[in-house]
């Protein structure tokens, strides 16, 4: 019998939204969490806005030792994993740790800690030969971000396959897709999977400034993320994580678990074109969508909602619109398409998993989250982007797509489990 992978637990940490419930409240209300950067003085930077999480490692349940040891991205992931595990009701002691694995996605790993420690050991950048005497013992864990997956594995007692996926801004979709493949193949019965990123630091802001990828709309941060709008001019950097308990369907049924959604199809393609540029025709993303739908044995017109990458850069939103039309045909115009980055910004690798969480909650509530700040659509973006207000809409099958530096294009099909079982 074919094995299937279903989501049975959700943990979320998002800007202005700690936990699954408050995350959904934010999305359904159409509020935005984008603000002027508070972590450091953003005045020297071209883009000065971001979507920051209200997070305190000790208040949010980590020990002093964990707070000291882990980068913020790892702290997010551990807190997210705890919520996801609690939400799933999975009893760790009653299940086999060797049949439990972890896949965490992250685009930039422990970048905040690396930058902080660099400043310390180089005397504020003054020295090229850095001073080893001031290095913290956890520096190697920041150097190689598999340490984030290790922290989650320790947290959930996983002794099966454990890995970190780092495919830029598709990491969050690719991590969950990989976890689903491991469950379907039989390498594990339970995968704790998702993605985390905490990139809001000077070096990240500076590198996106240099390629004008982030918005310079600094005068009104709350409306700075404007996917599909004619006036959009770049993305707003965000942070956060979403972590899921992904379980083999029969394993979940046997313990009477709540079944949120099946990861029914997943596929990725590369554009082999440019490290940051996109071909306007969206042909590779369209091919990823086609392959993911085929894997899910789903026809294009069965898609009830498309969760867009919708970063709010000029090129992305056109590229993606073209890809959705190319793959869904006439049905593209009949399907609501929205970008939650309009509200919580773009948290690089983490966002793909946050978007999966949004899709699953859309399914649970039969409500499609809106695209905030969309007042005047770009004429080249002519789909139904659910502007400003959430919409009641029957959602059984969702398509979520992502696009990342390096040319990565990923698509995932999520389906209401009752439909999968039928």
């Amino acid at each position: 019998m074919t094995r299937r992978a279903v989501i049975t637990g959700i943990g979320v940490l998002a800007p202005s939204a700690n936990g699954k419930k408050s995350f959904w409240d934010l999305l359904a209300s159409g509020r935005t969490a984008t603000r002027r950067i508070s972590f450091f003085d953003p005045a020297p930077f071209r883009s000065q806005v971001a979507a920051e999480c209200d997070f305190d490692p000790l208040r949010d349940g980590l020990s002093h030792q964990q707070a000291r040891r882990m980068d913020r991205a790892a702290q997010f992931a551990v807190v997210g994993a705890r919520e996801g595990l609690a939400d799933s009701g999975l009893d760790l002691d009653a299940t086999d740790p060797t049949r439990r694995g972890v896949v965490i996605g992250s685009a930039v790993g422990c970048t905040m800690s690396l930058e902080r420690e660099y400043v310390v050991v180089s005397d504020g950048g003054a020295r090229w030969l850095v001073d080893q005497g001031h290095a913290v013992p956890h520096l190697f864990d920041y150097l190689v971000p598999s340490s984030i997956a290790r922290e989650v594995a320790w947290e959930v007692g996983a002794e099966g396959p454990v890995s970190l996926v780092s495919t830029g801004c598709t990491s969050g979709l690719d991590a969950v897709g990989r976890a689903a493949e491991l469950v379907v193949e039989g390498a594990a019965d339970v995968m704790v999977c998702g993605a985390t990123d905490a990139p809001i630091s000077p070096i990240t802001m500076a590198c996106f400034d240099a390629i004008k990828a982030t918005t310079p709309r600094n005068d009104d941060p709350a409306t700075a993320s404007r996917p599909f709008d004619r006036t959009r001019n770049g993305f707003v950097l965000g942070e956060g994580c979403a972590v899921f308990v992904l379980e083999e369907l029969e394993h979940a049924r046997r313990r009477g678990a709540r079944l949120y959604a099946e990861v029914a199809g997943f596929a990725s393609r590369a554009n082999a074109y440019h490290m940051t540029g996109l071909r306007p025709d969206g042909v590779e993303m369209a091919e990823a969508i086609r392959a993911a739908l085929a894997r899910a044995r789903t026809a294009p017109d069965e898609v009830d909602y498309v969760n867009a990458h919708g970063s709010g850069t000029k090129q992305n939103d056109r590229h993606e619109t073209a890809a959705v039309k190319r793959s869904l045909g006439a049905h593209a115009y009949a399907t609501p398409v929205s970008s939650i980055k309009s509200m919580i910004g773009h948290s690089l690798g983490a966002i793909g998993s946050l978007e999966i969480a949004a899709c699953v909650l859309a399914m649970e509530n039969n409500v499609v989250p809106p695209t905030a700040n969309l007042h005047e659509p770009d004429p080249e973006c002519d789909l139904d982007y659910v502007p400003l207000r959430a919409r009641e809409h029957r959602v059984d099958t969702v398509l979520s797509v992502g696009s990342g530096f390096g040319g990565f294009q990923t698509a995932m099909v999520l389906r209401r489990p009752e439909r999968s079982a039928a």
Partner: protein
Amino acid sequence: MTAALVTGLGVISPAGLDTETHWANTLAGRCAIGPLTRFDASGYASTLAGEVPEFDPREHLPGRLVPQTDHMTRLALLVADAALADTDVDVAALGEFGVGVVTASSAGGFEFGHRELEKLWSRGPEHVSAYQSFAWFYAVNTGQISIRHGMRGPSGVLVTEQAGGLDALGQARRHVRGELPMMVTGGVDGWLCPWGWVAHQASGCLSRSTDPGRAYLPFSADAAGYVPGEGGALFVVESAESARARGARPRYGVVAGYAATFDPPPGSGREPSLRRAIEAALADARVAPADVDVVFADAVGLPELDAAEARALAAVFGPYGVPVTVPKTMTGRLGAGGAALDVANALLSIRDGVLPPTVNVTGPAPGHELDLVTTAREARVRTALVVARGHGGFNSALVVTA
């Protein structure tokens, strides 16, 4: 299920800038570990490394690629070129989306990132390069290889420290067993810069010896850490159907078995998971321990971890039950490239019927019941096991067969 064949390979290591030079030096037992030359390391606690021989990237890569790539990515692009040239494949003939790329990464293009951090903090944000947005990040090698060779199939990047090379091969095999004709996969790493060095030293795992012949002595009574190196290997992994259809040559072997596990949290009292990874990989390959002709060990060079690996090998194969070798004693541990290089060594062992040596180690410490190959040994090799562990508890095992 279709077999995943290795039909091309490329190597750059401290032992050589191409496969055959690397292999000849490896069989001759020439240790390529030496004092760091890439930067002045005299003030650091550890000063030895396995550096790739010097080369001019402009002789090998398009001029446009040089300013936007870290040293590590230049190495990876050269290795990918070599792997593809080795099997002489026309990527476009395999379909629009017929070839994908999955690589292992560990620290990304760290030297590039270091330079940009320095510009940012000493001169200001407007000095940061436009290429910083991708040149340092973990996905850069996969992206640049796919662009250079027009590979538009499924792509991926895995980070599990030193185990990554095997995990990438496992992922590539999954695609080839699915519907894809071909994947380029493996790992190439390079992190020898002052900032990377300080971060690496912080692990507490590096040897502090200044004698290249005494610095990295895994399984010996004098084991006291390892020496980092750079380089790695990439492979063309191809479905049997595709290889047959295009009459692919050469045929190095089959990626026959793979498994990954993770160690229990420290202090749990549970058994480490390495043995389970080895047993699962053998089962996956449908081979018995007695069928295995050689093991390429992980061999960290830290007494406790060496003992755990020696115990796992003795438990699976019996005491002194299989030849065990550690050619990385000549190159150091190459991060994401290390396990990939061992797979290349294993495939070349199959090709040439010879086991490369473990150098500088005269024999295993008392208690390690290992048949350690300390001089090159002729042997008929049909099945080889490669074992790799990533810092923090990652265990992977891969079986290649003739």
